[in-house]
């Protein structure tokens, strides 16, 4: 009984860390421009594919541990570039448009990115075909035989994921509170007009928000690849949805809320699979539970767990 509880907890925290890393991207962008960037899930996917691309181009076929940071850097670069491009080309021109316009654009970008990866990734010489699952390299150290502690099995990649979240959160905390840019970002999210009057370059802040979210999503993409051993062009869709739910759960606009929301959602999902009795408890329904949590949050606590921002926009 306790063993299965801790197993579920460990699995939940791993999953939750993944959600949290992606959720930050939704939340920082929303906090500043009140835009739900649906395409963020695809940025996560691009990060994972970018990591594989880096592995193919620079890795030289080795699976040694030192490839890991290189892949990570490659994934981050790819994700950040794509995110900045979408911001510059698609979202920025729509900043004063009715709210429907950027939402529809986001859907378009999301579909476009999925298809672009599916169709063109494999055409680059040496790259694996992306129309079905793509094998993710089993980097030494973060894959291989799992740790077993008191009967609870913990994948090495899970450790990587959780540690990545911890490091990223510390980094985020430092960035937001200790740097000029971070403080400017906070100021902008609280009152864009005043921030502009104080000489803050809003365009730059928005780009940083997109880049920051993309970088964390790329880390998540890497983690996902290590956990599942393969990636595919559709992986961003459900993960993005769940991460968005996590962001709402934590209180959209609040960075720490996103982290907390991700963890809570991951654990709740994992617990539901373990403890909901009968046929609905099976893993077939796990995604459904996550979405039901989203809906329940909206009904009972629309401002989220840490609810910094009152959701009151038409």
């Amino acid at each position, binding site marked *: 009984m306790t063993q299965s509880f801790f197993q579920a907890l460990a699995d939940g925290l791993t999953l939750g860390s993944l959600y949290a890393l992606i959720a930050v991207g939704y939340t920082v962008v929303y906090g500043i421009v009140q835009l739900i960037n649906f395409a963020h899930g695809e940025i996560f996917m691009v990060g994972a594919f970018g990591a594989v691309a880096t592995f193919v181009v620079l890795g030289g076929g080795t699976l040694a541990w030192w490839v890991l940071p290189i892949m990570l850097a490659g994934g981050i670069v790819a994700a950040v570039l794509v995110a900045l491009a979408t911001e510059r080309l*698609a979202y920025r021109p*729509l900043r*004063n448009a009715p709210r429907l316009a950027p939402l529809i654009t986001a859907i378009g*970008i999301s*579909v476009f990115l999925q*298809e672009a990866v599916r169709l063109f990734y494999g055409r680059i010489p040496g790259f694996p075909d992306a129309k079905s699952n793509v094998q993710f390299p089993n980097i030494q150290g973060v894959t291989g035989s799992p740790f077993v502690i008191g009967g609870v099995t913990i994948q090495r990649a899970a450790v990587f994921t959780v540690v990545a979240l911890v490091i990223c959160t510390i980094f985020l905390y430092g960035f937001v509170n200790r740097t000029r840019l971070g403080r400017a970002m906070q100021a902008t999210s609280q009152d864009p007009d005043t921030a502009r009057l104080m000489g803050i370059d809003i365009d730059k802040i928005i780009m940083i928000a997109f880049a920051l979210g993309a970088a964390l999503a790329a880390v998540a993409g890497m983690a996902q690849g290590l956990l599942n051993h393969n990636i595919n062009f559709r992986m961003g869709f459900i993960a993005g949805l769940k991460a968005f739910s996590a962001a709402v759960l934590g209180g959209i606009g609040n960075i720490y809320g996103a982290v907390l929301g991700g963890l809570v959602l991951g654990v709740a999902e994992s617990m539901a699979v373990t403890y909901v009795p009968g046929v609905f408890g099976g893993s077939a329904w796990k995604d459904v539970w996550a979405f039901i949590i989203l809906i329940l949050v909206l009904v009972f606590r629309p401002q989220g767990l840490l609810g910094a921002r009152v959701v009151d*926009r*038409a």
Partner: protein
Amino acid sequence: MRIPQLVSPEQQQRLHPIGTVLTVVGGLVLLASTFLPWAYSSAALDDMTILGYPSTLQLYAAGFGLGAAVFAFLGRRLARGDGRQVVGWTRGAKTASVAAAVYLVVILGSIGLELGGLVNVVYGGWVALVGALVALVGSRLLVSGRPPRLARRVPPAWLGILSIAAAMAVVLYAAYYGLDQEDAGGFVSFVVVAIGAVAVLFRLGVMRWLSAVSGRHRKVLIFAAFLTAFAFPFTQNGSDENMSIATQVLIFAVTALGLNIVVGLAGLLDLGYIAFLGAGAFTAAILSNSVFSTVDWHPPFIVVVLISGAVSGTLGLIIGTPTLRVSGDYLAIVTLAFGEIFRFGMINLDGTDGPDLTNGSNGIPGVPDLNLFGLDFKDTHTVLGIQLGRFANYYFLLLVLIAVVILIFVRLNNSRIGRGWVAIREDEKAAEAMGVNVFGLKLFAFASGAFLAGVAGSIKAHHDVSVTPDQYIFLESAFLLAAVVLGGMGTVLGVLVGATLLKLMPEKLRFVEEYRLLIFGLLLVVMMRFRPEGLVASKRRQLEFHDDDDELAEKIQSDIDEREATGVVPVGGQA
């Protein structure tokens, strides 16, 4: 979209005569070139190898050339005087020249593609291209002048009605001809011609005249439109292929119209709309006489339709009630999530992961054809010596449904409820403060959209024969949304155009099949960037999306005034 001018307006005033000469000459050269051979082999498009008379596709080029020449000639005096004419001759000439150039690029490109290289284009083709380019350059030097006044001319009733009838006949012929194009090159050429011709008519002022006439004879227009749609199966002479496409277009259009109530009228972004269609389809399939049905109750179809609608509508209420209170953004994401839940649910309700209702991912095959009022839909009937097959039967049923949905759409839009929706889109807080029941109206739009999708789904189940979860995935929702956005949010005609284009293109352009989703993802982005109001824009939507464009507001105001002056119906509303 604007094509950049080559020279400043002042220079245009001066260069107008030269532009006229160039355009006329270019147009006539193009006209003449169609009597020359264009292609080396007759295998490309239609036979363009003949010296002496033009082929059908060449004839279209001739039409654009002649149009450019004649319109430019008729508009030769525009640079003098007040710059206002009854018919927008030079505007027409400009557009005809652009259309001619685009058309030639497409034609020569297709010849090159189909025969393997541009060497297969013969001298006549190059002459034609030169003619078109000369006309294009010349037309760029022309003065546009102020908008034509044609729309203010009120023709006698018989002429108006005759014009409507003629326009409908052209539409019917175009539908017949377009669907008849087997190869992609021919179809693309046809689409370019059709768009070009419509654009030229717009610029001449003929379209506005026609729309003013239609406004005056609204009933005639509606009757004529349905008569035309009704006549379509009779042009197919029993061919199932095109009728199958036509029924698919209709199902798609009905669903998109329902979505347009939600998105276009109430301004709510519903990304899980396909799930409501799916819920209706599954309900109908489960209640049908299929041997794979999982329940024992099989009521008549009339009852099934209502149950399907009710099931979807109830789902809409369940989803809408919690989310519509919060904010529009959340609705989008919750509906997206709902779409996924629906798919998981349908896959999981297979007897192992949950109660057996849908047979899991196999779905429910073998849904029998409908049998309404003694008419068995699987039978082929012969009317006036023309065979009407299974698809034609569904076509007629869907036509009735689409008529009902259009009626609901238009009448709700032009009512107290429609005004409430507009007010909510404009300023939700102010609407609430003026006593508009914001939540109620949103929920109504959302649930009634869901209801209509459920009804459409019940027919789709029988039409498709089998209902499976993978027919109702997110991409289909996005596809529907693309139809609404492309066509025009909040308009009926726009959605019909959007749905037709989006459904027809992949059918006719097999070679883009692979790139279908890529293209329409891009389409959504590009439309939102450059023409968010869609191809057929609702005036109000246009204003909403271009909030800082005061020029546009003035223009639309003058339209309203003009309509008032000529005694044509309503105001600001449906465009």
